[in-house]
């Protein structure tokens, strides 16, 4: 059921420059509907810039991004959100003056066409989503009372409440300990199981191998390798990019 006719998300030669530096340089890949794909790469590889391009907060210098076959390049971020692309931030950005439930409800109130159903409906949807990410018991807490892992959950909840068809997760596991990562993995699986396509950026290899069906490796703005996570992570170029040439050779011998 995974192989759809036209890919849900398609990047063609996406390029984003900051001055003379190409943070993302000619990146092309596809994400099929219902897939769960991980983007990995060393610091500064252009992962977050790539997500910014997809969600519309940064304009492409070249290339095209298509959602279900139609271009979304150059569209403003709130329109991209309404088209059904949800997004979380690596450094969480909760609405600090609100409760947990209100945060999620904002996502449900605006978001994609599937999400909108009035204020009361939005709060009902918010509760469903909070249940899904395991924050139901803390729905009435102010955001300031949440721990870091819970704030990350809230970030996901708010994005899921927009009822996206595609969810972009920017390092939701960063800064979590092992136990917390396992919990977060379960959450990502649960969200994916609701039928949302997931594209996630991750530093923690365990996450990529644990949940992703496909991995894309970025290095200096280029796609270095893509394919099944286990295969990609054994790729010599990937090991070199991460650990340096000396370690790659040592591993080989």
């Amino acid at each position, binding site marked *: 059921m995974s192989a759809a006719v036209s890919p849900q998300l398609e990047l063609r030669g996406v390029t984003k420059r900051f001055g003379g530096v190409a943070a993302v340089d000619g990146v092309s890949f596809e994400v099929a509907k219902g897939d769960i794909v991980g983007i990995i790469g060393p610091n500064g590889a252009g992962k977050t810039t790539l997500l910014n391009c997809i*969600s519309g*907060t940064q304009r492409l210098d070249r290339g095209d991004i298509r959602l279900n076959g139609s271009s979304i390049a150059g569209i*403003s*971020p*709130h329109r991209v*959100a*309404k088209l059904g692309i*949800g*997004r979380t*931030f690596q450094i969480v*950005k*909760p*609405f*600090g*003056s*609100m409760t947990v439930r*209100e945060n999620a*409800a*904002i*996502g449900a*109130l*605006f*978001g*994609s066409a599937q999400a909108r159903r*009035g*204020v009361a409906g*939005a709060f009902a949807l918010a509760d469903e989503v909070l249940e899904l990410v395991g924050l139901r018991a803390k729905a009435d807490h102010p955001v300031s009372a949440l721990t870091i892992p819970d704030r990350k959950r809230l970030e996901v909840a*708010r*994005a899921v*409440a*927009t009822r996206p068809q595609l969810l972009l997760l920017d390092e939701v596991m960063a800064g979590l300990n092992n136990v917390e990562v396992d919990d977060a993995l379960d959450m990502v699986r649960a969200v994916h199981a609701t039928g949302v396509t997931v594209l996630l950026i991750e530093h923690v290899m365990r996450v990529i191998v644990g949940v992703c069906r496909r991995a894309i490796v970025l290095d200096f703005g280029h796609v270095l390798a893509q394919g099944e996570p286990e295969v990609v992570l054994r790729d010599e170029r990937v090991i070199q990019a991460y650990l340096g040439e000396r370690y790659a050779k040592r591993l080989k011998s």
Partner: protein
Amino acid sequence: MAAFVQLVILGLLAGGVYVAVGVGFGLVWGVLNIVNLAHGALVIVGGYITWQLFTAFGLDPFLTLPVDAVALFVLGYALQRGVINRIIRAPLLFTFLLTFGVNLVIVNILLLIFGSDFRSVTPTYSGQGFELGGIVIPYVRLASLGAAILLSAGLAFLLSRTRIGLSIHAIAADRDAAQLVGIDLRHAYAVTYGLGAACAGVAGGLIAMIQAITPTAGEPYTLQAFVVVILGGLGRVSATVVGGLAFGLVEAFGQSIPGSGSVFANAIAFGLMVLVLVTRPQGLMGRLR
């Protein structure tokens, strides 16, 4: 003792106008981070609409208040969408310059249309009042306090219970996150400014019933709105209500000091503002962020 009670009541009644002037200013400041120097000019626009409707059609001035609100909302929305949105992320000084410029433009358009004569709105019941235990309570003042409280309650309801209100909270909390859940920032900014202007318009309608207005009469109200919002604390409608009533009380007591007049009252009000900033910078009702 009776004199004291009279002062408290007169102060609270006068505070109604300051509440109305303050809520819109506080909303724009808190959400858009714009200290809106055109606020007083918008207040006076509301005053002229009320005056025009009263003199041309004999409409009861209190019935003109919704017209003020709607007209000023449209004007404010257009101003934000067309002009002020361009500098929304610019440093504070730019917002000062731009809103001061907008203030000048509005004042001069009013001068062109209405001239510089004093205009006042005097319905049959103006100047009348009733006596309560030896204290005279003017009808207009009492009704304007009621209107200001209603306005604040309406605004608070809108902000906490409706879709557009929640989007205003969201853009105040985090603009980037807000647009990524699907909130159109430029529209939400414009609605916020429009609501601020609508409140200013209602305040103007109330002011026109209490004192004579000219196109340049708005400037003190910008200043008073500033003091009221600082007194109460930024970020909540209820805080501005407290700030406005406190300002009215302080002014009433300041004016009661023998031989002081209104100059001394201003000195006391601004002195209180400085005192609040020193001892309780978040305002009487504000929360530290």
